[in-house]
């Protein structure tokens, strides 16, 4: 298998851009319109905001179960760099191998079905043939035999799929984070959380424990059914379009939070949205938790007037402890000043979508 990210060979749909160094990432106008804006009203508070992961409107981020967008090739190149520097971003405990194959099947079948122009999968019993045109990969392998792939099944398929993925084993009426690949995370560490249960890995989240949110969410997830995936949106903010904001690399990006000035807010400050989805996996009875990161610059966000108004209000009224937890405190005031001119006080329509 060749994993050469030769962008000159990829269709022009995919952007040639970076999420580090010179940070050339940006969204096309089409990409802005399909951004999964996470606020359906002018304020934010925790909720178990779970819905069925059903197809959303055509071209939206939820049109298909697995969303492949214009950032695909560049994101996969960034993931390869992260893994080359730190292999512990991808780990799997030995009892998760069946779940790994379940995940490979879910991702390959979804991608090939929904994006036939880029991916194809031919199955003849357990002899599979996978073609990934954007990344120039043509792979024949035996389903269930890890020796026929260049990486373990989870690592193999997630090096070719946008989003972080965690595999949760279900036992003792709890979910255990026993495998995952995590390279585009909002300041949490797979290496630290590996082996923890659902209540443990949510330990640092303020308020939500007292609200009983995790007990309710866990009870719901333990009965998650095959063929009935669910999703929710989560959000934070990131300075510079950096996918890999990990604790392991905090020394590289933490300082960025002090570099925001009134002049650079529009380019530097990003709303970071996670489209989180959960599927029951059939062979292993495990659950896959996918965390797909979307970034949008403030100057891109305000091109949708409703979003500019609303985000100004959400950020202004966010309780201090939540702002601290999300790491926004340093640059919140500067960002609010920049956003204020885009909020004329007019009412906003209900729902997430642009007017």
């Amino acid at each position: 298998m060749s994993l050469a990210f030769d962008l000159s060979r990829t269709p022009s749909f995919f952007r040639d851009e970076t999420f580090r160094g010179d940070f050339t990432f940006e969204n096309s106008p089409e990409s802005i319109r399909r951004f999964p804006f996470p606020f359906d009203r002018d304020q934010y508070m925790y909720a178990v905001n779970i819905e069925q992961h059903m197809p959303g409107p055509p071209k939206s981020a939820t049109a298909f179960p697995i969303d492949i967008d214009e950032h695909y090739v560049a994101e996969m190149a960034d993931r390869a760099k992260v893994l080359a520097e730190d292999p512990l971003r991808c780990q799997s405990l030995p009892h998760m191998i069946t779940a790994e194959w379940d995940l490979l099947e879910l991702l390959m079948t979804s991608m090939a079905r929904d994006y036939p122009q880029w991916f194809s999968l031919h199955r003849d019993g357990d002899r599979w043939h996978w073609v990934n045109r954007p990344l120039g990969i043509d792979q024949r392998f035996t389903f269930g035999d890890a020796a026929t792939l260049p990486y373990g099944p989870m690592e193999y398929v997630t090096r070719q799929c946008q989003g972080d993925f965690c595999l949760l084993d279900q036992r003792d009426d709890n979910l255990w984070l026993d495998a995952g690949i995590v390279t585009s995370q909002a300041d949490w560490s797979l290496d630290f959380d590996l082996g923890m249960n659902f209540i443990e890995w949510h330990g640092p989240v303020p308020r939500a424990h007292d609200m009983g949110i995790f007990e309710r969410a866990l009870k719901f997830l333990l009965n998650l059914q095959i063929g009935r995936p669910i999703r929710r949106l989560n959000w934070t903010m990131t300075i510079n379009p950096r996918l890999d904001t990990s604790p392991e690399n905090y020394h590289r990006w933490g300082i960025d939070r002090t570099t925001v000035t009134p002049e650079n807010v529009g380019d530097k400050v990003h709303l970071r949205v996670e489209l989180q989805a959960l599927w029951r996996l059939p062979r292993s009875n495990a659950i896959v938790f996918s965390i797909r990161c979307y970034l949008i610059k403030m100057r891109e966000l305000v091109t949708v007037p409703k979003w500019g108004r609303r985000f100004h209000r959400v950020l202004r009224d966010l309780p201090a402890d939540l702002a601290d937890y999300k790491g926004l405190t340093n640059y919140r005031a500067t960002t609010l000043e920049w956003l204020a001119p885009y909020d004329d006080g007019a009412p906003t329509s209900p729902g997430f979508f642009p007017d």
Partner: protein
Amino acid sequence: MSATRYTVRVTEAEAVTPHVRRLRLEPADGAALPPASAGAHTVVTLEANGRTLRNSYSLTAPSLAGGAYEIAVLRSPTSRGGSRFVHERLREGDTLSVSAPVNLFPLHRLARHHVLVAGGIGITPIAAMAEELSRLGASYELHYAVRSEAAGAFCRDLEARHASRMRLYSSERQERLRVREIVPHQPLGSHLYVCGPQRMIDAVFADARAAGWPEANLHAERFEAPAGGDPFAVRLARSGKSTTVGEHESLLEAIERIGVEAPYLCRGGACGECICDVIEADGELDHRDHFLSPEERRAGDKIMICMSRLKGRELVLDL
């Protein structure tokens, strides 16, 4: 929310004993069946004598490649119509509707050793678990108690597959399964799984507890068919519909009969999915599930509609 459903054709129907019929189910409409893990069950919809019955049956083998499911149905002397229909009416070539598999009795993947115990038709999920453990090369032992070798489903097949890992106990031959002699000699980190009649589950757990086993290492498939009872009225406050729950039907079945979709998974009082808020109860709630705690039962404001009933006149639910 109920599970995704698939239309399947009965491609094999075989009497494996005089009272147990094995069915092989394959997709009828080209839509592939999802793979199933060991211990999973499917909810089969049976149109029997003008009534719609939905019964849960364990899949008797893991179906890791998808393709086909197998179930084994015991002809029950107290049948509400489901098992009689499967035994007397269902033919090869008939179609049925089955749910996506649900696993409420999964293998514990970190167990150092697995002790599997089955009584009678309780062999169905246990056989699938033994098969999966054998495939994985895991450490396990299988104890199977039957009335006689002729009455026990799959005895020969299982002995051939599991050989020295399996012990068969036939009451006809005066062989007794003595769990209290099995449980003390297992390595730390062993897990025990039992499926069979309720009194067998209780006895096995009692022996394991007496031998000092931690609760978290004991697993049972508890679901059973809803037993009938005196009829009572039910009113659904949100949908504004009412009906009478018949002597031989469950509250959930009555609700489905009048076209209201209520959530469920196991239909056996185990999983908690069908929990429902009680708005009013003119009578006494007759809790028959394994889910609500004693405190929740006493509070009287929740009911598991797949199993439990009202002893009284009318129940008003938030549905």
